[in-house]
């Protein structure tokens, strides 16, 4: 199986090296390239925007302070995701402790994506998205996060496992179970979709 890593808005090596060498403009550029994606990712963990901003703040302050010790990550974006995630969860953990929520196997918080229906006019696609939403809500937060990293961010198992501090086998297991659940619900819709398409083709033939 060919492994192809998808990296949207990736930082180039010269930028990263310039930043490590103390180039303030390169640092600012790094911030501007990743700011939106980091906020979007953080928003999946919490709707508390000031908490996300705090985490992004700490992430970049640390980055500058440690710049001389930093290595060359395969993907700068993934490295930033991982760091942001650690910082954010630590901040949330503090809050969670005060709320005294039992943390079992799963996260003590939700991982939540909001679907956008405004751009979908095709009924069958909207139906598919509805089913998908239902299926995803039955998954654990961990599974939802893997699904997100994989299908939205387009990451490989290795990259997703690295960001979530999991080993690859458990990542694969988590995702495989999640996909099984998706399949059960989505397959039905697919069948309905096919029937609808065949139905409309037949209707067209009859008209002509």
């Amino acid at each position, binding site marked *: *199986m*060919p*492994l*192809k890593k*998808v990296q*949207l*808005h990736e930082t180039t090596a010269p930028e990263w090296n310039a930043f490590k060498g103390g180039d303030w403009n390169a640092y*600012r550029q790094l*911030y*501007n390239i990743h*700011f*939106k994606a980091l*906020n*979007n990712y953080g*928003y999946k963990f919490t709707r508390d*925007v000031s908490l*996300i*901003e705090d985490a*992004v*703040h700490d992430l*970049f*302050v640390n980055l*500058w*302070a440690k710049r001389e010790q930093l290595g060359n990550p395969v993907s700068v974006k993934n490295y930033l995701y991982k760091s942001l995630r650690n910082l954010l969860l630590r901040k949330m953990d503090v809050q969670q402790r005060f709320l005294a929520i039992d943390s079992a196997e799963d996260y003590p918080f939700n991982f939540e*994506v*909001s*679907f*956008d*229906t*405004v*751009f*979908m*006019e095709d*009924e069958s*696609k909207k139906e*598919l*998205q509805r089913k*998908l939403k239902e299926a*995803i809500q039955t998954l654990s937060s961990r599974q939802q996060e893997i*699904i997100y990293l*994989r*299908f*939205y961010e*387009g990451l*490989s198992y290795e990259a997703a496992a690295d960001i979530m501090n999991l080993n690859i086998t458990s990542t694969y297991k988590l*995702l*495989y179970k999640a*996909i*099984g659940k*998706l*399949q059960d619900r*989505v*397959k039905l819709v*697919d069948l309905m*979709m*096919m029937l609808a398409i065949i139905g409309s083709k037949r209707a067209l033939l009859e008209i002509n």
Partner: protein
Amino acid sequence: MDFSKFINYTFEDFLNDDAFLAFVVEQNASDVLAWEKFRAAHPYKSRIALAAFNTISAYRQQKVFSNEQAQQSLFEKISVSITAGEPKIKKLSFSPFFKVAAVFAVVLLSALLYFTMWNKDAVKTDYGIIKTITLPDGSEVTLNGNSKISYAANFNDGPREVWIDGEALFKVKHINIDTNHIQPDEKFIVHCGDLNIEVLGTTFNVKSRHEKTSIGLLTGKIRVDYDDINKKRMQFVMKPGDLVKHADESNLVHQKMLNPQHLTAWINRQLVFQNASLEEMISVLQDDLGYEVVLDDKKISELKVEGEINVGSVKELLQILSTTLHLNIKTNNKKITITK
């Protein structure tokens, strides 16, 4: 990409395949072509592939939280934290030279602002006000409520350029007759967000709100320049009846309009919706007409009205909504409260 190797894949296999995922995420032109061929050659066996494709695509239609308005201010905070944390850097002291430079900067900035304002004409409409203006070249633009158009004062020299924020219907005047050989000076360009529309004499509707733009073409031909999901500059040439939609950092969605006349219903103050969710209707009430809509439960916004709504007033629209969706709707001036 060779899709024939997927012929015996199950739905799960597709979702686990990195190459297939990369194809759905990136949708390179050459892969899309191979994909279409694969589907044409194996109409039945490619069904599962299509289901996997649609599933991933549907999942990827998500709302993006970019927090853009905080981008600048947070960076300033970060800079302050870094400066405060680095003992090497002395406290800022304002030398006389710095003070002089600062005054100059302020003067220069206001001068710049003055000149850019002075060089651009702008028309802005309030909520609920529809206004038709004629541009210096004779082209007509109808602005929906809460919309703004601006254009250079020397509009007729060189290419005609306008900037749009909100919704507008354009009837652009032909300068040339031969639409296949347009001279640079004959161009008419509409800018909205990071997207440009190059017009070749035509009638079309643009809506650009909340970083999303939709363009419907009624007559003529236009070319849309936009950034795709990989930030690559792309072009799309629209034909009459086409509707395209684009949001920041996503691909262009291209559809055929079922009822092109609905696109411009707003000029006659008609509120027209087709199988619309409450969310879509609320955005028109808020963006175009300046209402404030409050829901007691966010989930209400996902409710849908099947079929067509075509009414001439907000009052009628709210009546329909309350009867078909069984909602309690209270209006107080410009504030609408919707409860279950």
